[in-house]
């Protein structure tokens, strides 16, 4: 394999290998996700009716915070050891290379949440038809969180303590995703059609996939210079 596909593949493979050699960091956001959701019945009330009502919001807020929590490391180590500089000096288009990094990040932080979410939904007594909608919204929403978050990380990677700024930058952009996703799951639980919200999330994902890589690339060039 050579050329751009080879570079994309090499970068994706490298980030996945690095993630699996740091299994502790890999499990961290997932444990965080698991803990927030499981603590709700203990902290609020174990009453089934109440849990069923708040379940979409609880799971989605936990997913959103876990995504935010896992973002910090997306470019940090690359920035510190100079791998980011070498990526910027690659002959390949930077926007495609950052897409490989975001994809690797989503595969290790977003995708496992998709598998965990149905179990947590059962724990919170969510009806079956809502679980399907939940997985569907997470499938469209978590890559969106990774893409939007990566822009924020790229802008703040040069700062020593960029954590607070990252949250401030990214959170407002996460709100629409949260609103559409939880609305879809709540509607599905009530037996109403959810195609409108799902289409909207899909449209947002396509928009982010088109525009975010260029924005991330530009932000990285500014941060490193």
């Amino acid at each position, binding site marked *: 394999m050579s050329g751009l596909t080879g570079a994309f*593949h*090499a*970068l994706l493979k490298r980030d996945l*290998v690095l993630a699996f050699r740091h299994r502790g960091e890999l499990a961290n956001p997932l444990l965080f996700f698991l803990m927030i959701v499981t603590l709700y019945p203990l902290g609020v009330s174990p009453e089934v009716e109440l849990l069923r009502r708040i379940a979409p919001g609880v799971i989605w807020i936990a997913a959103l915070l876990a995504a935010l929590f896992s973002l910090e490391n997306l470019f940090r180590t690359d920035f510190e*050891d*100079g791998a980011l*500089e070498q990526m910027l000096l690659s002959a390949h288009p930077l926007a495609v290379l950052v897409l490989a990094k975001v994809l690797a990040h989503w595969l290790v932080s977003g995708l496992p949440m998709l598998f965990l979410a149905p179990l947590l939904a059962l724990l919170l007594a969510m009806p079956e038809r809502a679980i399907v909608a939940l997985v569907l919204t997470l499938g469209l929403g978590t890559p969106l969180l990774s893409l939007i978050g990566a822009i924020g990380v790229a802008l703040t990677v040069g700062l020593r303590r960029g954590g607070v700024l990252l949250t401030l930058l990214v959170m407002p952009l996460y709100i629409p995703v949260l609103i559409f996703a939880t609305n879809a799951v709540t509607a599905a639980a009530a037996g109403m059609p959810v195609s409108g919200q799902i289409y909207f999330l899909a449209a947002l994902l396509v928009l982010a996939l088109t525009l975010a890589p260029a924005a991330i690339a530009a932000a990285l060039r500014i941060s490193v210079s």
Partner: protein
Amino acid sequence: MQIQGANGSGKTSLLRILCGLSYPSDGEVHWRGRDIQTQRAHYFSEMAYLGHCLGIKSELSALENLRVNLALADVGFEEVEIENALARVGLAGREEIPARALSAGQKQRIAWARLLACPTTLWILDEPFTALDVSGVALVRSLLEQHLERGGMAVLTSHQPIELRGDLVRVTLS
């Protein structure tokens, strides 16, 4: 060309501008008659930069590091070329060891293997002699000489006096 100057005189900043990582506040950097910012892909395929941060992942072995580096550099490569490059810099037999178990000088040698495995015309080297032992310095010097004899160019900073066969332009920043 050797860039000289006291600490803080702007050697590293100059090199970062030359390689296109930083932007000059005034003026342009040209490569083959055109501004490098308008022909990034072309310029980057002919230039290799070795900075203070080597760009080596400490969890990966020398071999794994170089595979990624060469894929990014857009040169077709064979596995055997990487092994040859590692052998030339004296890392034969250490290809599979994670870089974190190697010394600073050996990491520097991995970075040199990168320069060898992807042949580029222009080398921009920031303090290429730091962390290297006596044999390492001799190795780097001979690699530089070979590169220049092949018609390559090199811009480097160094606090040590460098003696190379052929002409060496010295620029002192103040």
